[in-house]
């Protein structure tokens, strides 16, 4: 039986955990003995076949920024994102695969072969990004048995290591993304109520604020730009990150700025930093309020605020949350490791559900009491053309059928009507997104349902969407009168893992590269 693994593929750091013999998750350190691996990649200058991942890659950025990559996760699933190195265009999926391969390689060397894994993603990741993450796992040689939302993983870790009962708000502010999840926890029973995220808010935005302060200080003194090359930018980005971390512990952080016009000593106070990040905290507040409002929960009804992600170490975040909820947030679990630990637990639960005979008895016993009710991560709908009441004109519209945060498993039906007399077919589009305006939603599939000939307009078409515990979506479009049916299935396993063969191809392409 192979190891059961959970991976936190983070924007700035990644980590890997596995279930031990009694079903408890443990972090597996990397080859350097570190429990966290920087999500940084450096393509060796001397040997094109060698790719460095982790701390060494992070340090090499200062020497050759053009051959280094960070914060890939923000570009996951973006077809326009490419990094060109030695004539090869690397996609976000391939780059992420390198990080995952490094984790798998190091983990296997420490604790034996690792193949079956669950990878965590931000709760707000859409199907495209989830699929891209699974592809990265497959390309890294993993058998990705599932995907778990980061806040859910963190809550799993929290609830299995503490005696928790009540309404828990998971505040997950990572390096590049921010998620808020509200859940009811009663011992090992966990029910997700609502989950929302901000794809573009995280620690790197805090770092940018510090960097802006440094740039301004230098400009004010020398009337010149501090940064003139990409290497300098990389150096000061890392410097800004260090200052941010220092300011979590001390009221002032000091550094030297060496620019083209001269050098200077710079001091950044926590007050200046907090002033700079106030709009970001305000933005995070909106997400918290949106979640509470959507769940119909008042701040006073939340019993625990669980902090997850390194950026929650920022003192302003903690005091601010205390200001909102009236009690200090829970920071007794390791904010950097809990997602990987929870992902390993989720991997165990998934394996138990999918293939219980393949799970060791000790692990089975350790996980048997855990119960998790998840929700639909996004809204799914279809394109229709109702008549606008105000204008009398037909308006092409996205109509949501399966609403975000509906508890799983679920099944919802809606009836639509044909538009014209003698209509021969209905073009059915499955969308993902919250907007009624089709321009703002992602179209995940388009098919055609053929209709019987010579019928009047306004014949009913019943549309049914269902979503199961394995995140498999089933869509049925039925012409009620004739009984004609179009059924479509979407599953991350089929689309992501091995369905289109792209991930296996990427795996073969990456195989010759040495990841160190």
């Amino acid at each position, binding site marked *: 039986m192979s190891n059961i693994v959970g991976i936190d593929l983070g924007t700035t750091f990644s980590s890997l955990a596995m279930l031990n013999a009694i079903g408890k998750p443990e972090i597996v350190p990397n080859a350097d003995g570190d429990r966290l691996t920087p999500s940084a990649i450096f393509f060796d200058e001397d040997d094109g076949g060698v790719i460095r991942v982790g701390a060494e890659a992070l340090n090499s950025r200062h020497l050759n920024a053009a051959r280094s990559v960070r914060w890939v996760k923000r570009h996951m699933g973006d077809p326009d994102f490419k990094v060109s190195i030695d004539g090869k265009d690397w996609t976000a999926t391939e780059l992420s695969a390198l990080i995952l391969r490094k984790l798998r390689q190091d983990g296997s060397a420490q604790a034996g072969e690792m193949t079956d894994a669950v990878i965590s993603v931000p709760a707000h990741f859409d199907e495209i990004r989830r699929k891209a993450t699974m592809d990265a796992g497959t390309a890294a040689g993993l058998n990705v048995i599932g995907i778990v939302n980061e806040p859910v993983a963190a809550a799993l870790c929290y609830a299995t290591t503490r005696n928790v009962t009540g309404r828990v708000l998971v505040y997950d502010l990572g390096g590049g993304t921010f998620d808020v999840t509200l859940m009811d926890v009663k011992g090992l029973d966990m029910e997700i109520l609502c989950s929302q995220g*901000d794809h573009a808010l995280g620690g790197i935005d805090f770092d940018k604020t510090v960097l802006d302060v440094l740039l301004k200080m230098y400009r004010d003194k020398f009337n010149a730009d501090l940064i003139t090359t990409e290497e300098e930018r990389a150096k000061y980005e890392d410097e800004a990150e260090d200052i941010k971390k220092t300011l979590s512990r001390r009221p002032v952080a000091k550094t030297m700025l060496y620019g083209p016009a001269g050098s200077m000593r710079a001091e950044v106070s926590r007050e200046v930093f907090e002033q700079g990040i106030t709009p970001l905290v305000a933005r995070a507040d*909106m997400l918290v309020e949106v979640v509470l409002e959507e769940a119909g929960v008042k701040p006073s009804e939340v019993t625990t605020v669980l902090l997850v992600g390194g950026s929650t170490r920022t003192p302003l975040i903690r*005091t*601010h949350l205390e200001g909102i909820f009236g009690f200090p947030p829970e920071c007794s679990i390791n904010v950097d490791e809990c997602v990987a630990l929870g992902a390993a637990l989720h991997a165990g639960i998934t394996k138990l559900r999918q293939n219980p005979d393949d799970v060791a008895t000790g692990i089975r016993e350790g996980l048997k009491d855990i119960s998790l009710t998840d929700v639909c991560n996004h809204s799914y709908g279809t394109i229709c053309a109702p008549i606008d009441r105000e*204008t009398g004109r037909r308006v092409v519209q996205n109509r949501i059928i399966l609403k975000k945060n509906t508890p799983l498993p679920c099944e919802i039906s809606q009836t639509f009507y044909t538009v014209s007399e003698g209509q021969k077919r209905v073009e059915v589009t499955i969308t993902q997104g919250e907007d009624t305006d089709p321009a703002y939603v*992602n179209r995940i599939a388009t098919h055609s349902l053929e209709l019987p000939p010579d019928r009047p307009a306004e014949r009913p078409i019943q549309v049914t969407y269902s979503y199961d515990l394995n995140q498999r979506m089933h869509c049925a479009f039925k012409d009620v009168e004739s009984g004609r049916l179009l059924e479509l299935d979407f599953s991350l396993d089929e689309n992501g893992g091995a369905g289109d063969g792209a991930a296996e191809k990427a795996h073969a392409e990456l195989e010759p590269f040495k990841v160190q």
Partner: protein
Amino acid sequence: MPTGLSQIIVAVKGACSGVLKRLRSGKTPQLPAAASARIGKAWGHVSKLAAGRSGSQVPAQLCRPLDLNVFNCRARIGRQPEGESWKSVIVIDVCGTIQAPADGHEVELRVTLQDVTDAESESLPVLNRPKHGPLNPSSHFSYRCDMGRLCHQTTLLEDWTAVGQMSPEWFVLSRCGQRQLKCATSVASRSTGEQLASSDCVITYENTEPGYLDIEDSIQRAKTLAVGLAFSVGAANGHLLDPEVNVIYAWAKTNFGSADASTGARLELERALQKTASFFRHGGTLNVEQICGEIVEIAPVIGRIDILDLCLRVAAAKGQVSTAELQLLKNLSDWLQVDRARLRTMVEKILPVEMHQGHDAEMVLGVTAEMSQDEARVQLNREYAKWSSRVISTDPSIRRQADQMLKLLGEARTQYVGVKTAR
């Protein structure tokens, strides 16, 4: 009004005269799709007004001497109860002889209407009123109803007998006011469709609703005024630039340039547009509020939305929009009576925030100075929920816009609501 603008009116009339000619010649009128939509909507309004009205007229045929050896028909205005009031209907009476193929033959009544007010040779069609959506110019009104079984092969109706009634809610006339309607009435076999007897009559009908040609005139007038407004938006910052003029030209050509328009009419339109552009380039201005007032009088909301859409596209044409232009657009939406929420939705798509030179919190985020802190908080949360889901769009331009909006929302939240801490 600049001479160019009045020339546009003339040019537009030229370009649109084809529609009228086709209608008069009995061919299918080719109304632009958007115009048809507006007509449909306008009819939705007028039909509501018409409901419940009643009237009574004595048709001229009442005094005509009758020949009972032939089939005769007459039409008169009757009244039919509707709830607690009455509504007018056109009642068809027939008398005289109907010759059937055999005893016990089943027949039906068929009536078609033609507007012959201006002379029979220039008759205009009466159109079906659609239940939903736009008016279809090729869907001519006709009425059918079952007359039952004729007992004998030859049937003689000695007295006027009411055999059908048509509600004005079923059809649309060409013009408002007193109209002469020719009712072509026939009795046909239900089994073969063969016409067994036929007769015509004319009724004077007082149409209280705007006709489809009235609406078309209003639409054309509104479009002409829209051109004036669009030029005013383009010139709002003191300079009318080529990209702005090009948007207006393209719009005018699409909206006025009917396929039937002659080359001369098209050239005339071109010249008129050039003159109007020149008027604005030389510092000319229009009373925009007054123009909007006239548009509100004649155009339904969908037409006004289209006009505002044009103005927004003109403002977007040069890639940036000044604070003065944004203010004018807000005023336009007020004067055109298009609500601010709709304006904001249109601005989001046509004038994304990256085009704005200054950030107008109301236009971009929907918060106003009058809002309480809590109202502002709710509004900002609503916007945040919207844009945070758009930030993962597959369209890079939407992602960019969403990123920018989220930054603005964070700043606005700091400004309007603040960040509370436990310290």
